[in-house]
């Protein structure tokens, strides 16, 4: 059963990685604006059309 020590260590380490990733995302402002990217995504297709028109 000593494998438990190893397994718990792994799981905690993995979870810490995710926590660190979240901190990084938060600090670099990725969660600041959660609304606009969704709108922006819908606009991209039509941009080609505008270029063609021109």
């Amino acid at each position: 059963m000593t494998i438990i020590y190893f397994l718990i260590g792994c799981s905690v380490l993995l979870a810490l990685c995710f926590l660190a990733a979240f901190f990084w995302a938060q600090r670099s402002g990725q969660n600041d604006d959660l609304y606009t990217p969704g709108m922006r995504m819908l606009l991209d297709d039509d941009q080609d059309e505008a270029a063609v028109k021109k």
Partner: protein
Amino acid sequence: MPETTTLVKHSCYHCGEECLTNTYQIQDKHFCCQGCQSVYTILSSTGLCSYYNYNDHPGTTRLRNDKRYDYLSDPAIMAELLDYSDERLSVITLYIPQIHCSSCLWLLEQLNRFNPAIHYSRVDFLKKQLTVRFDPQAISLQQLVELLNDVGYEPLISLQDIIKKQNKAEKGNLVQKIAVAGFCFGNVMLLSFPEYFGLSAFEQNFKSFFGYLNILFGIPVVFYSGWGYFVSAWHNIRNKILNIDFPLALGIAVLFIRTLTEILTHSGAGFADTLCGLVFFLLVGKFVQQKTYHHISFERDYRSFFPVAVQIITDGKEKPLPLAELHTGHRMVIRHNEIIPADAILLKGEALIDFSFVTGEAFPVSRTLGEIIYAGGRQMGEAIEMEVVKPVSQSYLTQLWNNEAFTRQQDNRMKTFNETVSKYFTIVLILIALIALIAWLPFDPRRGINAFTAVLIVACPCALALSTPFTMSTALSIFDRNLFYLKNTAVVEQLARIDTLVMDKTGTITDGSSQRIDLDVRLSLEQRQLIYSACANSSHPLSRMICQYFGELGKLSTLNYREMPGKGITALIGGHEVRVGNDDLIFGKAEIGTLTTRVYLMIDGQYLGYFAFHHHYRAGLEQVAGLAPTYKLYLLSGDQDHERAELLRFFPNNRHMYFNQSPQQKLDHIQRLQQQGLKVMMLGDGLNDSGALKQSDLGIAVTDNVNNFSPGSDAIMDGRSFHKLPAFLGFSKDTVRIIHLSFCISLVYNLIGLSYAVTGTLSPLIAAVLMPLSTATIISFTTLATHYSAKRRALL
């Protein structure tokens, strides 16, 4: 044929407003004004016309727009506006209130197609902000702002935006604390399960390993996530206040110390998961309470109403000057639609000043040369020159801000239920804990300590601390849906305690945009066309309304056109002498006893009739007036009292209506009512109400567009939901009742926990079950009950 032209009405291709003339037209596209047409021209020449494909009429009207941005080349102002600047790159974030649809987003992010010197532009849609990176050597800030203005997106640049520094870091910090607490809570819970379900004999060596890990996870929860509670509790004790943070901090500390000792002395499993769960839930409660409105500011004052800079004349040359440097003796130029920033003497030009925002007067007034004009008025018509007699900070209007109401802290407003209860709660809690300790001490000291700590743990007012934030945040989002925006959650409780409503007139109970207009005679088509042609020359709001009333009639050429400020218009059109104006112009004397504003019409010396302009009261004023027996209603208006008779319908008590009130008088009046022990709510819209809004127990700014300027207040209400005010008041009372009920529920859980605690038999398992269970009950109860009561009041 002129008859046919009257029938066709076009809406502007750019902004969708009704076109009053056919002058602006490109191919089959009609425009309401030069501004809209030029935006279209710019966009079509750049090949950006798919702007119009995403939405119909995506633009905003350009009718009232002729700003100047010379001041943006002033280095001192530039330095304050730019986020970052070096020789090759400048970054600026601009607030653009017009952002409202996907077309806006699309166009504003294509800025580099207008000018390659703009490297990058990004929109934050909810905050209505645009971040631009550009090369300052190729395009100046002024050119950038002018470009934005040309395409119809005029940034709002005000003094207050410069002064205001955003502190969004705080909320981000809270999210990180929640993340850490959640992370530890999850792990600790998993590590505690084996203990709760029982470990077999040969697994006992895991027990201490799990224990040590639990301590490890507990440390960041206490010292990072929960640290704020200790700081706040300490701070409050030093100020001799017992608030809810004290028992919370005590609970956290006791939990941690007891966990530490139990695990290190191998005497038990400790309460690590209760500890982490407690901190996690508390922080979540804090998070939901911090509702932020990105696009609404509650802290606006005169600085955001005034321009950033003003044009002054020195040595015969015009140059921009930052407002802060404006001194007595400066000669300034105020153009059409610009705001006069300081009390000044009129030196040159015809002044027609719209004081509606400052005094509540509905119509612009004319001033003669040499008169002192108070700050805050908006010039309509030609450019005028004025000499400053008082600096900005000491003018008639801004003096109001020196009143103590503006320096007073918000603290001495009403105490919330939570604050009142937690004081007694804390005292009772400590008493019970001490009694348990003393009662056990003679027989079983160990058990006494156990009981003492257990009481502090189990009675930790987690549910109490959560009931208010969760109820309030649900209530806030329901108000939000009904276009009523509250500054913070405490405002809901203040709303529930109000017993007196004080209302401003112009813009608050009257609808600013739509005045009703009546013509008392039938005119022939020719007569209508003559009057239309005369009025079409004028930019006076009444003339514009008359034009709108007639619709498109085709303008005839006008001779001898004269506009007399404050009187009316005379003109010679097609051989007919047309006079449109007030009683003085037409009859040569003032007519007494009229209740409405009237514009009289005369053609070739023959009196025809008049237009009557009625104020349009907001829909729902009847319902609000119906609150009368329960709530005291007052009217405080800066306007003349010619509507007194009409308003008697709504304010039956004549002594509750006050007219001709100066901003200071309004403030004093609120103060008098408060001295009578009344809880006063003030509804206002203009700068003239800002003193009263601040002094009142609850100030609500009523506005037709939440992005427009509204004075600093506790809440902002969209004019369209004015009729829901009675429902809002009722709902706020329900909300407070729900908080009381959930407090009772949390007390029941506390009593159950206490019965274990005082006997010293509280096991970690019971604590671990009780705490999340009570939290879940409270959250679901408050959310459901709040939604139910909102439905009952037809707010959902």
